[in-house]
């Protein structure tokens, strides 16, 4: 049986900032319908890899393929092709209400205005329907994260890159987030998840990729991560 095509694939990706090598010859493939967790200690290069995969940064060397073709050069083209993401440092639209944050995402997909009801259901998905008229500044931090997730889902992406979506969420909110992420797999959305909360990451992922100092050191099933010596060494700093 032929292997399922990779939705996104990094081939020998390097990213350097002056003399600092943030990513070193990284290979990564995320296949359709998978949830892949990208973990690693601080400074491992996780967000840099997400930036390269989402066109925010070009790779210094190497290639990124999206559905088998070179990734478009500009983020908006990648987004229109079916890729979107959330951010470690929230990038909400502060001058728009929660509903308008989602509405603008719906409108960006097409050519014009869409009915407000069309955006409501994405707020309902993350439990923010009652805060539709509020601006992001008026929301608690956890709800802002959820709003950013709702906005990303509103583009109905094929590939969703999530950068620490659980940061700042309460325990019940984390549980709800994990359920939503599993729900995304059921509707065919492919997810690449950067997450510090290992419990959550290992709970939802089909596969776990571990980065350390810009190098991919492991690509494992979740139940093999905790016992892997390379992962333990990377996290605990043991040689």
């Amino acid at each position, binding site marked *: 049986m032929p292997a399922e095509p990779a939705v996104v694939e990094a081939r020998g990706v390097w990213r350097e900032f002056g003399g600092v090598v943030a990513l070193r010859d990284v290979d990564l493939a995320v296949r359709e319908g998978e949830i892949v967790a990208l973990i690693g200690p601080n400074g491992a290069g996780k967000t840099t890899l997400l930036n390269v995969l*989402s066109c*925010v940064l070009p790779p210094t060397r190497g290639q990124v393929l999206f559905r088998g073709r070179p990734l478009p050069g*500009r*983020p*908006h083209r*990648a*987004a*229109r092709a079916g*890729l*979107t*993401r959330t*951010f470690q440092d929230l*990038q*909400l*639209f*502060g*001058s*728009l209400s929660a509903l*308008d*944050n989602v*509405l*603008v*995402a719906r*409108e*960006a*997909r097409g050519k*014009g*205005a*869409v009915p407000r009801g069309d955006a409501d259901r994405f707020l309902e998905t993350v439990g923010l329907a009652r805060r539709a008229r509020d601006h992001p500044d008026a929301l608690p931090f956890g709800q802002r994260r959820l709003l950013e997730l709702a*906005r990303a889902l509103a*583009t109905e992406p094929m590939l969703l890159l999530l950068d620490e979506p659980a940061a700042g969420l309460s325990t019940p909110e984390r549980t709800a987030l994990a359920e939503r992420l599993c729900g995304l797999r059921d509707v065919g959305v492919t997810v690449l998840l950067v997450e510090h909360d290992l419990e959550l990451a290992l709970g939802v992922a089909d596969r776990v990729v571990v980065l350390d100092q810009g190098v991919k050191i492991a690509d494992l099933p979740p139940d093999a991560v905790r016992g892997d010596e390379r992962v333990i060494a990377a996290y605990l700093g043991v040689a």
Partner: protein
Amino acid sequence: MTRGDVTAVGVLAALIALAPLVASGYQLSILISTGLYGIATIGLVLLVGLARQVSLGHAAFFGLGAYVSGLLATRAGISPWLTIPAGALAAMAVAYVVGRPVLRLHGHYLAMATLGLGIVFQVVLNEWVDLTRGPSGFGSIPTATLPLPIAGGETASLYLVWLAALAVLALSLWLVRSSPGRALRAIGDSEVASELLGLHTADWKLRVFTLSGAYAGLAGALYANYVTFLSPQPFGFIFSLELLVMAVVGGLASVWGGMVGAFTLVVLTETLRRSLPEWLPGSSGELELVLFGVALAAMVLLRPTGLVGLAAAGLGRARSLRAAPATAEEPLHAG
């Protein structure tokens, strides 16, 4: 547009329509100037307030609209009804050509490019004497007259300018509440997030800059039609700054800020021009500039949302005060 906006535009239209019955010629000239500068300032509010891009050369678009309209009417004998839109279109075209390469770059390159455009425009006006008559300028520009049974002069100009100003105001109010307005606000808030939703941010910024240039060109063409004499002097860097001050003082967060800022600065300028020599004998025009600078700095530091923001905050406080007694009564009823 909200219902409040529709009502406010209607009330403003009625006030302008009735103004010639009660206002003096001088007061009408203040209203005409407000309409002219308000058109250009609304364009800046859209550009700076929504897309967070700064133009330091809007005087050039204003002047370009004026000169294209004035030259076509005087040299080619074309009807002012055609030269006025031609002035707006010319400014729009130049804004597109300048903005297209610059707005693909991140950062405040537009401010640099428009500053340069303003300088080049001044040089062209002063040096291309065969076409523009250089620093001495040219006059006798034929004017457009509305097909209405009204007296000519200030009243006709008032109605023509405000017909355009109200159209620009209504269009802009609709724009900010519509899908393009949301897209521009989103881009102003976070370019990277907007891109990753699928918005071509460079194109959107170019669109609003082009529209802003067209507004300034339209205002300039109407100015030429009103004053009937053009020279390079009014379209320099200082005028670009004045337009920016109008936008900031009025409030960048609201389209109304453009009109409020234009009115405030026109009245302030006229008041200073009349009263300053009495208050400070021997003072010159430079003092006006100093006071403008102080007004700009004070507004940015103390009330960045401008006069419209100040009014909105005051209105909000008044509403909450009115609502307070009802809230206070609730525990009594509950008890």
